[in-house]
């Protein structure tokens, strides 16, 4: 049973996401971007290509500049979001990436190189990322 956060956990979510076309309808089409997730001291790079999540991997901080944008939250917030998805089958309206972003003092998404165009991808593909995390409802998860 994969533990959140870990590369194994993201890999399991990726497998679920890629195997179910109903999860790809969020944006109504292709999503091409590299997103970074910073969870406490750990960092991951997730590559979306077309309708698939092409790659997930843990990445050292120096590689995070490869991301179009990075979502960074405290480990508590991440855990709360994933636990909510586990409990409800998908994020309730207080635990979506959009709602969490709205309730924080600073936006949770930013461009590592201050590129507004790439940062905007967080909103342009927002539902795809939400669908990705909602897919984690089908991954039996343990927490630290």
């Amino acid at each position, binding site marked *: 049973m994969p533990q959140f956060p870990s590369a194994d956990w993201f890999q399991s979510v990726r497998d679920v996401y890629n195997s179910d076309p109903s999860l790809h309808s969020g944006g109504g089409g292709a999503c091409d971007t590299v997103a970074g997730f910073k969870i406490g001291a750990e960092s991951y790079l997730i590559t979306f290509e077309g309708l698939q999540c092409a790659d997930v991997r843990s990445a050292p901080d120096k590689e995070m500049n490869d991301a179009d944008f990075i979502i960074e939250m405290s480990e508590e917030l991440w855990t709360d979001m994933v636990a909510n998805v586990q409990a409800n089958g998908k994020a309730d309206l207080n635990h979506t990436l959009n709602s969490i972003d*709205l309730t924080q003092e600073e936006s949770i998404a930013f461009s590592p190189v201050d590129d507004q165009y790439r940062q905007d991808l967080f909103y342009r593909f927002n539902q795809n990322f939400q669908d990705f995390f909602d897919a984690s409802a089908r991954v039996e998860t343990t927490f630290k």
Partner: protein
Amino acid sequence: MADSKDSGAAVPAAVAGAIAAAGGEMVSGVPEPTFEWMGLTNQWGVRVRPDEHGLRLGDLNVGIYGEVPEVWDDQTRRPRGALPRPGIPPLPYNLRAKHQMWADCAADLYEEAIQRRWIPATEVPWDTLETLPEDVERAVCQVLTELMQYNNVEIEIINYWQDQMSYGYYEVKQYLATTSFDCARNIEALRKRALSNGGGLGLESRGSVNRMILESRGGWTESVAYLYLLRGTFAMQILRGLLVHAHNDAERFIYSHMIQDHARHLTYGYDHLKYSITHQDGQAGIMQTLLSIGEAMMGTELDDPVLRSAMAIIMGGGIEAGRTKGMDAYLHLVGDFVRDYLSICDWLGVEREERLNPNIAKYLEY
């Protein structure tokens, strides 16, 4: 990726043979065609190949077809790269400089818009709508009514300027066509939601900012500043607030998809403003003046009680809580708009914090 042979203007040798091979008797009285047009091209033998993403609009920018000039003097409908024909009367394409409309992302955004379509009629889970308390339904319908007007204005101002954009920058014209369609789809979805749950449309917006946008005739860049930097950044916050407070999966679907569409529009808008400011002397100063005017109008509209009370009711869950936590949440949302606006102005190189209109600056405390 593309292969390309040299350009040529001679009649292809194969043509004469092809005519002979076609056999057939000539119709009497009709001049014999010379097929000279077949040799008239700026560049022939182009063979653009699709990559793993398919064959995208931006991939076609190869050879002379990828030469995007700083100024496009041709006032005809000649597609970029085609040979000009003498004697074509000019048309009123008044925007003929790249800095007046260009954004490097336009071709990519066109592809994104084409691929990420959605169909309100069948994809929105309309069967998840449930009767809401009347005060909430009235508030939802009021906000949707005003959002419909936002979209109407976007279509109108785009169409006004699109007519005047020269064909040297066809990527932008193509992309803006998708934007008009996005807005039409938004209007469709909003109207369907308003008329399918026991409510109806609400009160027309006072429309000061709408009018400011529609009357911005100094150039497309001016319209973009008002339409996207000011109004659009605010509208994004409204949509995000609606999504957080969606009452059912139908609303959730509509708002989340509208956010993605709108984000695409903002990307073009911000990118164009950046291009304009960095490629046109004096444009940053002009932006300062335009934004001083626009902020004043925006501040007045934010004081209008209709939208703010409707949003507060939605965010509070009813009139009673709308007076307290709903209004607090709405004011915080407007504060987020102002913070986003200032941040984007900084990125554009047009710092506004010190000059911010007091009617807007007051929301920074929330």
